[in-house]
């Protein structure tokens, strides 16, 4: 059972009206931005379930876009995110979709950054502003962003995990949770490392320095 803090009960500090439909949505957007990397030029939000039904009234659309722009859930400019996006030349679009058995507050986000790289994620807002990312670039995953999270995209070959954890231990970073997902043997794989400590930027450089088997490293600060 989760050991609730006083700040889980009185908090989060946020822009209304709904912790699940607004604050959680902004957090999903923020994680999506990190995963896409670089300056996002085009984004499509595909809304499912309750998100699809009530997104205008709850400002879910503005909150998702605010997250894509890098805003926190308590940023007072959140309600102006559409205007800010237009001024920055960020194209955005919202559509309603059916993702089947997904959580009622789920969104699929497709992004293209300035270098033309495409990314997509699926995330759900699971209550009280908490979120769960369930898919990245077609790969089923699961992480919450509750802890500082390192996401490593690697090639599924022997020894990669050992090299990564060795670097973590050299920086005295305690791993709270770790999961590994792969598409198929020897192909694209993801490592999710949730830590108890802040992860310094040097760690990312060291991880990238491991070699070609490490394709990308993202750091998501605790939400």
């Amino acid at each position, binding site marked *: 059972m989760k050991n609730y803090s006083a*700040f889980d009960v*009185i908090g989060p*500090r946020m*822009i*209304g*009206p709904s912790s699940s439909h607004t*604050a959680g949505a902004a957090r999903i957007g923020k994680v999506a931005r990190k995963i896409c990397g670089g300056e996002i030029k085009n984004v499509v939000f595909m809304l499912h379930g309750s998100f699809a039904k009530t997104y205008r009234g*709850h*400002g879910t659309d503005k909150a998702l876009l605010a997250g894509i722009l890098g805003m926190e859930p308590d940023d007072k400019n959140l309600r102006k995110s559409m205007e800010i996006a237009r001024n920055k030349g960020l194209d955005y679009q919202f559509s309603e979709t059916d993702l089947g058995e997904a959580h009622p507050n789920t969104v699929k986000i497709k992004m293209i950054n300035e270098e033309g790289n495409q990314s997509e994620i699926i995330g759900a807002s699971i209550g009280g502003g908490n979120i769960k990312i369930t898919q990245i670039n077609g790969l089923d995953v699961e992480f919450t962003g509750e802890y500082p999270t390192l996401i490593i995209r690697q090639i599924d070959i022997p020894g990669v995990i050992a090299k990564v954890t060795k670097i973590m231990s050299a920086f005295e970073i305690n791993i709270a949770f770790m999961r590994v997902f792969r598409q198929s043997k020897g192909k694209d794989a993801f490592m999710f490392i949730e830590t108890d400590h802040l992860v310094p930027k040097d760690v990312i450089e060291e991880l990238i320095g491991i070699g070609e088997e490490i394709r990308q490293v993202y750091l998501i600060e605790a939400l």
Partner: protein
Amino acid sequence: MSKNFTNGLDLLETCKIYEKNIGQIMIEREMENTGKTENDIIEEMGQSLVIMKNAIKEGMNKDIKSVSGLVGGDAKLLKKRYESEKTVSGKRMNKAVASAMAVLEVNASMGQIVAAPTAGSSGILPGTLITVGEDFGFDDDALVKGLFTAAAIGYIITRNATVAGAEGGCQAETGSAAAMAAAAIVELLGGRPEEVLHAAAMTIKNILGLVCDPIAGLVEAPCVKRNAIGAANALICADMALAGIKSIIPFDEVIEAMYKVGKSLPCELRETALGGLAKTPTGVKIEEEIFNKK
């Protein structure tokens, strides 16, 4: 002994052993669990108090309209009345109620608030605690301690039941917020830990079974007015507890009853907008107007 209490009875025992009040035990529990200093923890809660105060000010003075246009401006109306004429339920009551409504109106207009314990119930605790604090001349430090008292009650409910409308109906959401508010006020005014729990228990008992039936599924109506009644409920129960009136059913049992009642509510009455006020002819008409607007 650890300060990680798990229910009301456990909390009373912890208060007795350490000879400290509920708010202080909650602060020390936080220190134990996070390793942070007392000052850091108090300062962090202080930031939430600032946002709460700003939200009240904004809602009481500015012209506010929600995203859908359904709510806004009611806090101002009530304020105008209690400031200019004699009211039925008195100035302090009306001020607390108007303050609670103000926060919810700010929330519905995509303004900044602190979930307490949720966004849809975020008006009750600040509305009552800050009003009582002002009227009795308490400083911000005392109010921040009050927020920890409230957090202790909210934590017990979250741990053993639920504060989510989708799970337990409005009783779980605004009911918990009101219980937290009553608890904070009783402790602020010098009530003993037992009295704090009696206040919280009575508050929830008063609204047991309250359904969550938001029009068009939005955190607007009847949420603003449910925060108003939650504030009034909290003040009345705080006075009753401070007068020595006891809850016949103990706090922990009330929480368990609330959880069971919540689970036995049909899903139509748990935030789905498929029943209650949401499915009245007027509720349905408003829903159609809102969703066909754009």
